[in-house]
């Protein structure tokens, strides 16, 4: 068989989304790849320019459908900086809780999808079963399982329902036991190591040059985690370790993500304890009146009308489940943001596809791309 291009996508079981990986193969060996994005481009940045600040939160949920709260958090931090608003401390802890639960949900979702890529069916169902527990928790305090619309400029929409922290702790205990089970099903199998060791190698230098971040970078020996390096929200007040590995391959990325889930549980336990001890307001007291419209946040206590609202630029950078996500928001004084620029880690991670795919085999594409953890909603925006 001579060299030929095959289209893996836009509808292909490997893609986990809507994108097209054009692969040039010689027999079963990959000679060249050309990722094509844009199948899910909804123009979120453009639509944001016609929305109130709080309405944009709705769009952020749709940016990444498995990590909606992390993107809300990203956007909210940037827009609060652009609008010069300080959230109360309890809201910051609640946001950290949201983000870490979201990291759990996203990583379990990744685990489920990844094991199918190497042909394991059972852990897929285990993962979906356990992710549902996290979604149940989301539902109990945001009212939604996927598109939450929970955060608001100046805080969060509502406080936790009674008994939430105890339920959350039960879920965390259950999850911690399940992580060991996951490891047995994957790392315990020789075939898993045969498939994933020394596969899709992307060394630290290449990662940095091509802008690859998140678990991929940490598995290459660079312990860059924005929660530690550049703490935001309440991350400077919780203890955790940055997960890392040195192998820079698919197994390394697996190990990093599993360790990150365990660290998330550790963070969440501290945050839940703090939330139990420190009741308080979850919305800032002073907010511009126009910010409340048209959907007034629950729990507002006194809006002040600010005339000649100051302009500003807000920048935030958070450690999203997939890597380094950034938002750059320009406030030109109107009710709508002038420009919302979102940077997705998946976008950069896919752009380096040629570096970690060429030279491997067609059968290696699903595990490698699975280990990248592709979420097309956020790379296309």
């Amino acid at each position, binding site marked *: 068989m001579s060299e030929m291009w095959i289209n893996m996508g836009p509808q292909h079981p490997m893609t986990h989304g809507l994108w097209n990986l054009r692969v040039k193969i010689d027999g079963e060996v990959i000679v060249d790849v050309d990722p094509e994005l844009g199948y899910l481009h909804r123009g979120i940045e453009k639509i944001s320019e016609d929305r109130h600040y709080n309405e944009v939160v709705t769009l952020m949920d749709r940016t990444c459908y498995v990590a909606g709260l992390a993107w809300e958090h990203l956007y909210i931090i940037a827009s609060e900086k652009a609008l010069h608003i300080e959230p109360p401390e309890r809201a910051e802890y609640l946001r950290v809780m949201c983000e870490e639960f979201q990291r759990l949900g996203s990583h379990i979702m990744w685990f489920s999808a990844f094991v199918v890529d190497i042909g394991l069916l059972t852990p897929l169902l285990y993962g979906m079963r356990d992710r549902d527990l996290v979604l149940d928790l989301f539902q109990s305090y945001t009212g939604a399982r996927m598109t939450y619309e929970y955060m608001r400029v100046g805080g969060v929409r509502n406080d936790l329902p009674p008994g939430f922290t105890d339920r959350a702790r039960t879920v965390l205990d259950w999850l911690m036991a399940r992580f060991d089970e996951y490891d047995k099903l994957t790392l315990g199998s020789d075939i898993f190591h045969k498939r994933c060791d020394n596969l899709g190698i992307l060394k630290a230098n290449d990662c940095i040059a091509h802008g690859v971040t998140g678990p991929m970078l940490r598995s290459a020996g660079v312990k860059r985690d924005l929660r530690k390096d550049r703490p935001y929200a309440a991350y400077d007040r919780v203890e955790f370790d940055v997960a890392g590995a040195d192998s820079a391959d698919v197994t390394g990325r697996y190990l990093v993500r599993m360790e990150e889930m365990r660290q998330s549980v550790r963070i969440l336990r501290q945050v839940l304890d703090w939330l139990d001890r420190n009741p308080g307001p979850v919305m800032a007291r002073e907010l511009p009146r126009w910010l409340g419209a048209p959907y007034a946040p629950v729990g507002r206590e006194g809006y002040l009308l600010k005339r000649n609202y100051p302009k500003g630029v807000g920048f935030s950078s958070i450690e999203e489940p997939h890597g380094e996500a950034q938002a750059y928001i320009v406030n030109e004084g109107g009710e709508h943001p002038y*420009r919302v620029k979102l940077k997705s880690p998946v976008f950069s991670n896919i*752009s380096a596809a040629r570096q970690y795919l060429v030279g491997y085999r067609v059968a290696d594409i699903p595990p490698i791309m699975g280990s990248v953890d592709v979420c097309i909603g956020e790379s296309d925006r």
Partner: protein
Amino acid sequence: MGPEELRAALAPALGPSLVGVEPFEGFAARVRFRREGATELFRAVHGLGNTHLSMVAGIDWVDHREVLYIVWSDAAKQYTLLSADLPADDPHIETASGVWPSANWHERETWELVDITFDHHPDLRHLLTPDGYEFRPLLRSFKIHEPEELEVKVRHV
């Protein structure tokens, strides 16, 4: 590295194309430069340890356009913002993808959405919009609430 040190480090290499280095919230500094000295600036900033380019963005200020580069230094654990103003009638700048390969896709995106051309870019094709798509959606002149303008004109190539 504060703004003053950054200015001292960059000024010799750039000369007049360095417009200013000023403090900026969330960043080590904001470096404003003219597009003539773009490549020198990228090399100099990269040489200062800012090995990771996080994003390239464009903003349409109607009378002019602004192109932003956000870089990260692992040693200083800080972001630095680089920005250049480009005239609206001729928005182009030298590509940064020779210095930071990660700029490749960000510049493709900025080109197709904000209509800023990157000279000597290795692969300036449409990324998020279909090939032959004529509009530049993130320009202020592109209004999404006027349905008659929503008719997508795709030139088949």
